């Protein structure tokens, strides 16, 4: 043998391997085999380099080699796909070389507490490298990867921030949160922050800490430089924890965990509207888990409260979809709690009132929004009646569900609709059919009676599905109409007030817009109103949808009317379906038994205390920062 041009497999190796397989080889056979193996290896290497070149790499990977093998119909080699070089070791005595292959302790791996370094998302970044062919303006930016080990600065930043947020000094916390909200260089820290936030479970006794963590979530979500990617899921689950769990902190009635839940619910909706596209099916998962909590009678009332405010925050469609169908069943339980006047039940009863209030707020908006969306769709027909054109127009302006984008909620509402139709994650969703507004109102009225601030007339006017304005005495007493008084009452049930003001001929007050899911309440409010006015000025004669979305109400004659009164509990508990079919077959539901429950709960509905609390808590969101 003169000169070795290539690495060669020796005949000894071949013989050893053959022995390993239980075959004895002669010298000549081994030599032949060895040479052939060398040749085949070289051939495979050559063709694998082609894959490397086309992948525009300089480094030949195991994958390249495997591809070459696969295309020449040779079995690929598994287990060496790692990008890193494999450590190669030798044993002196046996002149043996091998790739080190350590045992992996799966249990240890699974229980390890350190966060595995995630893979950062692939992204494109642009920078002007050379202007007019001269000079390098800015060096190529640093690469924000999670894989990169953290620089000292980042580490220090991380420690400072977490210490500030979880520490005692409220001022420091505020500064830290503000920075977290605007810092553009903390992408690498995102997994760490997410990890910290996932610690909510361990501090469920400390309301203050929970609050701070939620604020941290908010800051992260609002940071425009952060790409949350799959971390959205983790954040959502932390937030959901705060909304739904019977926190240890809630054992003490003095703790205002309600505020936390409200805040978390708003946060949830904010995350969803702004980052929901990052995780597919997120909406469904959220809805399902809320539904699960709501339908579980064993859960404490504060969990139910969380589910209700969560649904409310996700928008009226979520309420219609989940809360409304569950209401009859849930009502029975709630009723039982509220009816128990014993002293031992006082605390639970107070909680029950909370839930009642939350539900009331949710369904109020549901009714209002649904009416709006119907008036929107009714517009198609009304185009034919010149008389009602004006009214229709003014409604369209206000209908957030269908007007084109600018406002976040409107696109969200569309999004929900499409989501639900397309998604269908659980079998629950398949059978869902929208309940026509009259039936819905009728049913809700049977629960809440006059507590419902939204009123529909029973007359023929209802046929066009515009919420009319027979402002009932009780309501007007409760909510003095007029913008001036509204200002005073801070946004105490703004939707109720606004709704009362709606009449076909009035121009739509911006107040009709529901609170947008953005956390910055006042700002977006003004935005939405300005967008409304912009639209109005732009001229609005175009019909958006010629066809109505919900056609059934139109086809049924305006024979719908209802009696003031509730219905028997037993009947209600049968669920929605029989009621619905009954409504369909005998349009005039004349045989509704006298209302009983609404009468029994005059205080709750009328005074609107729970609602006031809700608005207060809503407002409280803006306090910390």
């Amino acid at each position, binding site marked *: 043998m003169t000169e070795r041009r290539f690495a060669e497999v020796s005949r000894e190796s071949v013989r050893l391997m053959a022995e390993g397989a239980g075959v004895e080889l002669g010298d000549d056979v081994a030599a032949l085999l060895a040479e052939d193996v060398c040749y085949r290896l070289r051939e495979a290497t050559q063709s694998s380099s082609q894959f490397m070149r*086309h992948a525009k790499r300089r480094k030949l990977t195991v994958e390249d080699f495997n591809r070459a093998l696969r295309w020449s119909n040779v079995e690929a080699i598994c287990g060496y796909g790692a990008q890193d070089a494999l450590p190669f070791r030798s044993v002196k005595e046996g002149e043996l070389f091998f790739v080190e292959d350590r045992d992996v302790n799966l249990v240890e791996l699974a229980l390890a507490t350190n966060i595995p370094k995630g893979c950062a998302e692939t992204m494109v970044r642009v*920078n002007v490298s*050379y202007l007019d*062919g001269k000079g390098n303006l800015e060096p190529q930016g640093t690469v924000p990867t999670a894989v990169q080990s953290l620089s000292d600065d980042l580490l220090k930043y991380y420690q400072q921030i977490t210490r500030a947020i979880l520490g005692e000094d409220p001022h420091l916390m505020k500064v830290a949160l503000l920075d977290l909200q605007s810092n553009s260089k903390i992408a690498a820290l995102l997994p760490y922050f997410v990890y910290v936030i996932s610690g909510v479970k361990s501090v469920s006794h400390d309301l203050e800490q929970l609050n701070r963590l939620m604020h941290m979530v908010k800051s992260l979500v609002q940071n425009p430089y952060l790409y949350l990617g799959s971390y959205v899921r983790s954040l959502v689950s932390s937030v959901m924890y705060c909304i739904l769990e019977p926190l240890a902190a809630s054992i003490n009635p003095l703790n205002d965990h309600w505020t936390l839940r409200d805040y978390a619910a708003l946060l949830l909706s904010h995350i969803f509207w702004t980052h929901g596209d990052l995780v597919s099916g997120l909406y469904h998962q959220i809805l399902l888990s809320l539904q699960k909590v709501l339908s579980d009678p064993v859960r404490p009332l504060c969990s139910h409260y969380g589910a209700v405010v969560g649904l409310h925050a996700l928008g009226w469609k979520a309420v219609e979809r989940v809360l409304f169908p569950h209401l009859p069943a849930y009502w029975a339980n709630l009723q039982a709690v509220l009816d128990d006047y014993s002293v031992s039940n006082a605390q639970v009863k107070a909680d029950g009132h909370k839930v009642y209030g939350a539900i009331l707020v949710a369904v109020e908006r549901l009714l209002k929004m649904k009416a709006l969306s119907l008036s929107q769709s009714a517009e198609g027909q009304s185009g034919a009646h010149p008389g009602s054109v004006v009214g229709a127009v003014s409604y369209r302006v206000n209908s957030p569900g269908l007007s*084109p984008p600018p406002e976040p909620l409107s696109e*969200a509402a569309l999004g929900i609709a499409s989501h639900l139709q397309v998604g269908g994650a659980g079998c629950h969703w398949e059978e869902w059919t929208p309940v026509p507004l009259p039936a819905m109102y009728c049913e809700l009225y049977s629960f809440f009676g006059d507590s419902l601030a939204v009123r529909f007339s029973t007359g023929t006017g209802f046929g066009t599905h515009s919420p009319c304005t027979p402002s009932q005495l009780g309501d007007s007493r409760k909510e003095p109409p007029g913008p001036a008084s509204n200002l005073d009452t801070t946004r105490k049930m703004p939707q109720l007030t606004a709704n009362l003001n709606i009449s076909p001929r009035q121009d739509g007050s911006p107040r009709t817009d529901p609170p947008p899911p953005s956390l910055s309440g006042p700002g977006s409010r003004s935005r939405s109103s300005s967008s409304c006015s912009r639209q109005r000025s732009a001229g609005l004669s175009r019909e958006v949808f010629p066809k109505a979305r919900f056609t059934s109400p139109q086809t049924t004659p305006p024979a719908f009317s209802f009696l003031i009164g509730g219905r028997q509990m037993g009947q209600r508990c049968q669920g929605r379906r029989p009621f619905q079919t009954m409504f369909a077959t005998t349009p005039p539901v004349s045989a509704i038994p006298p209302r009983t429950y609404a009468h029994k709960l005059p205080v709750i509905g009328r005074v609107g205390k729970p609602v006031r609390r809700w608005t207060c808590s809503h407002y409280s969101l803006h306090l910390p920062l």
Partner: protein
Amino acid sequence: MIALTGKNQSYVLVLYGLCFPLIHVAHAQFILKMAAVQGGMGDADIKTDIKTEPSADGFGNNNANDGRVLSASPGSSSSTGSNKQTAAVTPEDQQTLLAVLQFLKKNKLSESVEILRREAGLPENSLDPKANESAGAGSGGAAGIVDLEGGDASSLLSRVTGSSSAGAQAPTKGTFICGGKKDQPDVSVVLSAYSQQGDPTLYKVYYRDLKKFIETVLDCHRAELSQVFYPLFVHMYLELVYNNHESEAKAFFEKFSGDQECYYEEDLRILSGLTKKEHMRGNETLLDFRTSKFVLRISRDSYQLLKRHLQERQNNQIWNIIQEHLYIDIFDGMPRSKSQIDAMSGSLAGEAKREANKTKVYYGLLKEPEIELPLDDEDEEAENEEGKPKKKKPKKDSVGSKSKKQDPNAPSQNRIPLPELKDSDKLDKIMYMKEATKRIRLGPDNLPSVCFYTFLNAYQGLTAVDLTDDSSLIAGGFADSTVRVWSVTPKKLRKVKSAADLNLIDKESDDVLERIMDEKTASESKIMYGHSGPVYGISFSPDRNYLLSSSEDGTVRLWSLLTFTCLVAYKGHNYPVWDTQFSPYGYYFVSGGHDRVARLWATDHYQPLRIFSGHLADITCTRFHPNSNYVATGSSDRTIRLWDVLSGNCVRIFTGHKGPIHSLAFSPNGKFLASGATDGRVLLWDIGHGLMVGELKGHTDTIYSLRFSRDGEILASGSMDNTVRLWDAMKAFDDLETDDFTAATGHIHLQDNSQELLLGTYTTKSTPVIHLHFTRRNLLLAAGAFNP
């Protein structure tokens, strides 16, 4: 088979008209295979069929023998067998015809048999086994040593196809298919040509003898004759290996491999690994070498010198090799210099024959459709009323006059049927014209700004990038089989609404195109899943509604950028598809891959419209000519070919690169082509004359992207060496036009002026540049993945 005579072509055309009207008549082997598929039978069936016919063997050998006799004495006509009456047809072609006939007969296509026979003027009994038996018997001896396995397995068909394909191409890959089983007969036939016996120890002597001779000839001839060394060396080595003279082969290799030109290093390395007869079976490089004749251009004087020398010395061994495996393109005139030769050589199969580049190429641009520029456009800056029309009118006229002048070199407008312009296309054209008026005029003193799109966190997985013509979208193909699209403008990517939601839309409204989009799906990037292997090629359609991607999994996929879903998977390549590109007018696209074949597709056909076959190794990159009538392909065989979309013919072969070609770019006026290869050089080609016109040296690694600026003044090249270089294309082409063309001979004098032409070198931190793009205003965009 490029050398097919006109007459022959018509024979095959008959066949071709019968079965597959759209496929270019590459050569008979290909047709047979296709026909076999059409007839519902696999290749294996044909083989067994023929194997059972004992007489076929002798017949085949007879013909092969004919070929050998002929080539040994050039000029003499065939005198053996029963083929005298078709002396006009070369024996090889006749073999092909006979094989075709036999195949047709087998498949009971008697009508076609008749037609073909009539056309070819073959006698009735030409297919009669008995008539040929006696002729075959005489050459039985030769057949004995032909094959390793299966004794008489060197069947007629495979033998015929094997030798008939010698002229040009090996269209289907055998080597990758289950150990070459499919192509075994082919290979053995190919290899059997090496079975001549000669004293193995004399090979060295022969070679040394020739070497000595060439070293002693006059300087002007030496360079030319030195070209013979490499092909001779390889063939002699292979002969030694084939005849089991392993040690002699090794010694031969060691002694003379050092003499070969450095640019053959890669091939020599592969060759040196090959030491056993068994290895030759299924080795692509070898097959390529054998099936294609190595083309040399030698002046008549030099050739006479060589011929005289070999005849004097009775050096038959070498003479035989030259006759059989080399194609010597003899020209009258001055012998070429060493540098001239070096510039053109380097490809796997030598240079291109001169007549291969003689076809007329319509390289001119198509007339642009006349689109009225809207006069009262709101976007335009407010100008005073009087100034407005004045300013607009001349602009419009200039556009009109430009398009009215028909370029004499342009193909006729409807040479290739092109899709009609949609309204949106017209709008885009208007946008384009508007942008063009704001275009920066580039030049040596006015270099473009460079923007770099860096792909972060790609983990070495970015394999292809493309940008839309209006630079609004960027797409990346990744090794993890995904295709990702990013919007590089603030406008986010949105999907179309679902069918149910679309029903609710007012279809009459003006902004219906806006309304169909689902606002909820807006995001900066979209990922598209579908491929099952790395995505090596990617291309946006001109109207930005579609995206093409080609992958290792052998498919080309068409994606909709409205729904972000896969619309079609074009199957046909069966092997990794290295590149694909949309035609500049949309609708058509071209793809090329490991199967050495480029295919032309139309988006609404699931089968290719044209198959461009001829490259001897993988097709690595594909580009459409700006007028959409031609397609250029670069290959690992180190050649570039230009194909006519209309006829499917290869109209240009450019040789000169010393490594696989990885990037191609047409100049905006369609006259020139630039190519970049792993050797780090950019070569410039004049398409009309079929000449190399420039060489740009500077890069130190593979050039993965080339792009001309919109006006064609500047050529930008991006490379693996983390640089973008700008070259003065104007000057490179101008110098040439003042130079008097040696078009007749095709011999160019390249001056080494790379340094003068290099206008700038821009380095990235650690990002190989794999895509370049000039925006409509001539801002240079580059893209690549950051490799820390």
